[in-house]
């Protein structure tokens, strides 16, 4: 079935596209301005001077380079947290899809029930529990909760069901390979698009995490970028205000860039993983 492309439809969609892009364009343009230009020149055009690179230098060096520290923390939380979450979700999704074992239905019921309970109900008790365990103000307070991705588990469950043919597993067993070895040598490769998708979404939720580190951490040198940036932004108000708008804006831009690059580079993988796995 061949259909004609429509200029009207494309035009309407361009309007929507503008809504998506204008704020980002504003951010990009604002990152090229000095604090004075920010306050005195139009939002959607360049300022009198081009301060993009000096803004970046200032952002990275302000307060003894605390921004780089926050970036490092964020990367640590993402690598260990999202990486671990992907590993656990992949193994569990695969286990649920490929093995029939006692208690499997119970696992399903508990997962579904617990996921319906919103983070609201969990945040404060989790803080109190971790506080009693002496885990607040440590990296573990961020990493341990990041290790669980129910969405990832679900995705890998559905994905494994289709992607790994039972005959292949039988063949590996007949050849004498153990279950764990089969998983690592045979199944993992087939699961790759699903794994990339799960990893990417776990990365986003860990990179963007704000509420959890906000309540768990009070030492600025453990902050991720999100909490650090809001603290910079808060400097603009209150007693002894020292606004650093240009640094907040440039820092925000630097926070976005890695994820956007990851999504663009891995586009083909995660979109096919999502199509095959998420909705049937």
């Amino acid at each position, binding site marked *: 079935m061949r259909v004609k*492309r429509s200029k009207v439809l494309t035009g309407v969609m361009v309007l929507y596209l503008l809504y*998506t892009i204008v704020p980002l364009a504003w951010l990009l343009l604002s990152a090229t301005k000095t604090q004075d230009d920010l306050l005195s020149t139009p939002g959607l055009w360049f300022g009198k001077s081009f301060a993009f690179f000096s803004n970046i230098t200032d952002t990275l060096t302000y307060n003894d380079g605390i921004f780089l520290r926050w970036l490092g923390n964020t990367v640590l939380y993402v690598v260990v947290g999202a990486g671990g979450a992907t590993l656990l979700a992949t193994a569990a999704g695969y286990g649920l899809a490929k093995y029939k074992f006692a208690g499997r239905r119970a696992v399903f019921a508990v997962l579904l029930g*617990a996921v319906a309970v919103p983070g*609201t*109900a969990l945040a404060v*008790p989790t803080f109190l529990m971790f506080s009693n365990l002496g885990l607040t103000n440590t990296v573990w307070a961020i990493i341990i909760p990041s290790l669980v991705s129910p969405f990832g588990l679900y995705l890998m469950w559905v994905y494994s069901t289709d992607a790994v043919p039972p005959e292949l597993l039988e063949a590996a067993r007949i050849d004498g390979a153990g279950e764990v070895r089969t998983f690592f040598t045979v199944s993992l490769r087939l699961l790759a698009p699903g794994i990339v998708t799960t990893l990417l979404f776990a990365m*986003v939720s860990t990179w963007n995490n704000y509420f959890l580190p906000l309540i768990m951490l009070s030492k600025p040198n453990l902050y991720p970028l999100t909490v650090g940036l809001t603290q910079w*932004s808060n400097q603009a108000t209150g007693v002894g205000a020292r606004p650093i708008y240009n640094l907040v804006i440039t820092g925000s831009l630097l926070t976005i860039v890695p994820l956007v690059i990851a*999504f663009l580079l891995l586009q083909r993988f995660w979109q096919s993983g999502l199509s095959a796995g*998420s909705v049937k």
Partner: protein
Amino acid sequence: MAQSVAQEPAQVVSLPGTRRKRASKDGKGWLFVGPFLAVFAVTFLAPIGYAIYLSLFREQAFFGGRAFVGLSNYTEALQDPKFWEAFGRVAIFLVVQVPIMLGLALLAALAIDSARLHAAGFFRIVIFLPYAVPGVVAVLMWGYIYGDNFGLAANLNDLLGTAIKPLSSGWMLPSIANIVTWEFVGYNMLIFFSALRTVPGELYEAAAIDGANTFRTILAVKLPALRGAIVIATIFSIIGSFQLFNEPNILRTLAPNVINTYYTPNMYAYNLSFAGQQFNYSATVAIVMGIITAVIAYVVQIRGSREAL
């Protein structure tokens, strides 16, 4: 999505001829599922249990220590005007913002899937991009854009001669709704788009042979195929609305007189515990919200999976 999960175990059980072999591997499944469940128990189940425990006690102001008070924290919460004000606000938000956001996402997905759009792949990735922007950055960015200082709102007011103040009390809720919409239309669009991709081509051919036009094809073929995805997106959006925290909490520094400490139930629970040290009551508020959310999400799922759109 939820439907296919529910049906999935039955498929595996009914695989012919594998029953005895699989039964002998009973324990092996736990090898894979166990680690996930162990962490899940620590980060989900234990806090839920602890919250329930906390909600049954109250700190003794004069004598010190904790006293068991049964359900009295719950009766207090249910009669707490601050709680209901916060709840009412997120309920309005839910009823207005979620349909707009999901409607836009649905239209965008249908447009991109229709093959009538120039550069469809470009639209798909750009509309999705805000999802990759951390919520905090989105709020900071929009917060500045809203502001009089150097935001676009000021530029726009100068240009049009209007005096719209997005951070004033009348505009605050729509302003927050705009940020959430901007962030999540693309994500939902992608969920819908993925579902549309799984529609078998024969269905479209059959519809074309029956003489169905574009609109009729959407109603008869595409929307039914999207039902599961719409139900899931609705449930996630309900949970998200009731949990609203980041946006109002960050905007609070820009408009402290507009956003109070109990602007949303989540902010109320947060401020009760971290500013007020009322941990037991805070846990109660959180559980009440959790129960309300779970019940509504459950009802949506039951209705959504039974009724045709």
